[in-house]
């Protein structure tokens, strides 16, 4: 299917609904398998870290969720740009449905980072560069969520969130850099939670598996949420009525 | 490809909150036309005007409009400025170096040019918005309930301005509840779906 028609077809919600049906299951199963394999591998088979001992195994859930929470925001920024420039309905729906998942992943990354800090530094919360930029990212998500709730009209809320997501995406690297610079300056040589020294393969392989798994989860959850949003918005159309009647 | 029409609506359709406001609306407004847009509250009069003005974008179909001036429910007159300052800001905005004073005199604000609008009555504030109609020199006027808060002389003034504008080759689309009673009035009635197309008078 040439890209042009794919791009055009992406615009029609009904085609999106039918096409994405099977993909939700494929991605969902892959995510479950990958996450289980990666986690068990990391928990049981990977060697413990000589410095941190077994608390290092938290990396196999902290890093994937941290990575996916940032890529979800990047996705929201991209959807915002597509919505503002080409006004595609699907982009508006992605912007409306991906925020809760992104928010929960950021909160999870923050939680696991904090819990990991307890055995490492002895306190539940530490203003480390990673946890701080995660916290600011969480506030950016709250901002998106609150703005959508505050604007009654759906089309206006969509476009307003698109602008905010764009501003947020432009700001994420700046926030990350300023936080990294400021906090690492004031905490000499703390152990960096993620960019650990060169990890041997048996340590980072399960990590790679989990990262892949969490991306499949993102795909599955996003597509499922998108399909539900399509049904909601196309509620009065004929094909949705048939679907409801056939249910 | 600027046809002689000042405004061309083709296949215009818009839903708001799930209700069809207007559907497949085709309408042309030529120079010298005065169109009165009527219909019950919430029938989409303001939405149609705002769509033509470019403030509202969620419609399907095409709108081709000459340079226009839209006067909405709120007169866009800052109470903390004087009529002169309000008009001068507007003139800078549209990039015209006309003199606001004669227009202010024309709408009966002679002697009030320097007083802050907050000390003027609502009717006088709306007259500042009318002065802008003269200053704007835009062929197409979109007026949303222009008679509100105006006394009799104010309403007569609106009619004179519209008649004068229409005679000089301009066009006016006016949404109102009470007809202005002008001579060559074309009606465009918006209402329940079935009557909107029926009411369209070519």
């Amino acid at each position, binding site marked *: 299917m040439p890209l042009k028609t794919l791009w055009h077809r992406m615009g029609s919600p009904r085609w999106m609904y039918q096409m994405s049906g099977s993909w939700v299951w494929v991605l969902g199963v892959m995510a479950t398998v990958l996450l289980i394999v990666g986690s068990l591998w990391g928990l049981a088979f990977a060697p413990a870290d000589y410095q941190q001992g077994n608390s290092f195994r938290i990396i196999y859930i902290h890093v994937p969720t941290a990575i996916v929470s940032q890529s979800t925001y990047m996705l929201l920024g991209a959807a915002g740009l597509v919505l503002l420039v080409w006004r595609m309905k699907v982009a508006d729906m992605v912007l409306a449905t991906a925020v809760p998942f992104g928010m929960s992943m950021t909160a999870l990354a923050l939680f696991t980072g904090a819990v990991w800090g307890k055995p490492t530094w002895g306190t539940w919360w530490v203003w480390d560069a990673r946890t701080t930029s995660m916290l600011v990212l969480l506030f950016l998500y709250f901002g998106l969520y609150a703005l959508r709730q505050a604007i009654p009209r759906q089309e206006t809320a969509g476009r307003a969130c698109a*602008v905010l997501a764009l501003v947020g995406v432009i700001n994420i690297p700046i926030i990350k850099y300023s936080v990294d610079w400021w906090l690492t300056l004031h905490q000499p040589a703390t152990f960096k939670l993620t960019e650990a020294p060169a990890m041997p393969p048996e340590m980072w392989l399960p990590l790679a598996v989990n990262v892949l798994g969490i991306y499949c989860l993102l795909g599955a959850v996003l597509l499922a949420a998108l399909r539900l949003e399509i049904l909601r918005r196309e509620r009065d159309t004929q094909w949705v009525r048939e679907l409801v009647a056939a249910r | 490809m600027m046809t002689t029409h000042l405004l061309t609506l083709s296949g215009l359709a818009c839903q708001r909150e799930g209700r069809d406001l207007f559907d497949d609306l085709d309408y042309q407004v030529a120079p010298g036309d005065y169109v009165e847009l009527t219909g019950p509250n919430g029938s989409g009069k303001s939405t149609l005007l705002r769509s033509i003005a470019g403030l509202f974008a969620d419609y399907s179909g095409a709108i081709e409009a000459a340079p226009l001036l839209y006067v909405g429910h709120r007169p866009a007159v*800052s109470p*903390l400025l004087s009529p002169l300052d309000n008009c001068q800001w507007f003139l800078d905005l549209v990039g015209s170096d006309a003199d606001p004073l004669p227009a202010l005199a024309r709408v009966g604000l002679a002697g009030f040019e320097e007083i802050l609008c907050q000390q003027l009555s609502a009717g006088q504030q709306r007259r500042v918005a009318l002065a802008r109609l003269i200053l704007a020199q835009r062929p197409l006027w979109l007026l949303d309930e222009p008679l509100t808060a105006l006394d009799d002389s104010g309403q007569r003034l609106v009619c004179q301005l519209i008649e004068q504008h229409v005679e000089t080759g301009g066009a006016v689309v006016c949404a109102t509840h009470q007809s202005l009673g002008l001579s060559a009035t074309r009606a465009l009635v918006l209402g329940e779906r079935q009557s909107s197309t029926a009411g369209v008078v070519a």
Partner: protein
Amino acid sequence: MSVAGVFVGQLRREFKLLLQSREELANPLIFLFLALTLFALGGGGSPEMLRDFAPAIIWVLVLLANLLALEGLFRRDYDDGSLEMLVLMAEPLFLPVLAKILAHWIYSGLAMTVLAPLAALILFLPAEVLPTLLLTLLVGTPALSLIGAIGAALTVSLRRGGVLLALLVLPLYVPVLIFGAGAVVEAMAGIENMAQIYWLLVITMVALTIAPFLVSAALKISLEQ
């Protein structure tokens, strides 16, 4: 003439509005000094404790005062319909928007920079650090007005936009706060801090080039209601 005319015309209008609402626009500055005294009282007025925290206190309160001043940026014009006229008539829209943001910066960021020595005095900030504080405020506060204007434009048509505006804008202020307060802290420790000030300048320049267009888009969206 017209392009410059639009900018100058809008600026002239903003200054005339400024004259009429002087007292109201002084409120963010009064808030700044009220909050400063609260900090001093909270800290028991002891110089040692306040001095170490002075850069952070001043910069955070400048952020919050700037946020309060954002209410006046579009709200009044939205209420009387001038914002709608502006969005309809101005071509290109970002020029009058830039004029409004400049006017907002003058009565918030610039005013706070001018009053900063007073703030430094009551928090016992060492005198030799004052130039750095003024420089960071001068360079950093335009970014606050520019970024804040985007939030103000997004929430202008909402009745209870205040708290939401803070929620949208404060996370975006984090880099400005970090580099601004950071530079002053480093000046107190005698470390070279020009790098942070250059970074503040970078943020302000990026904001200057991008924000007006985003604000224009946000205004058009907010007026669709």
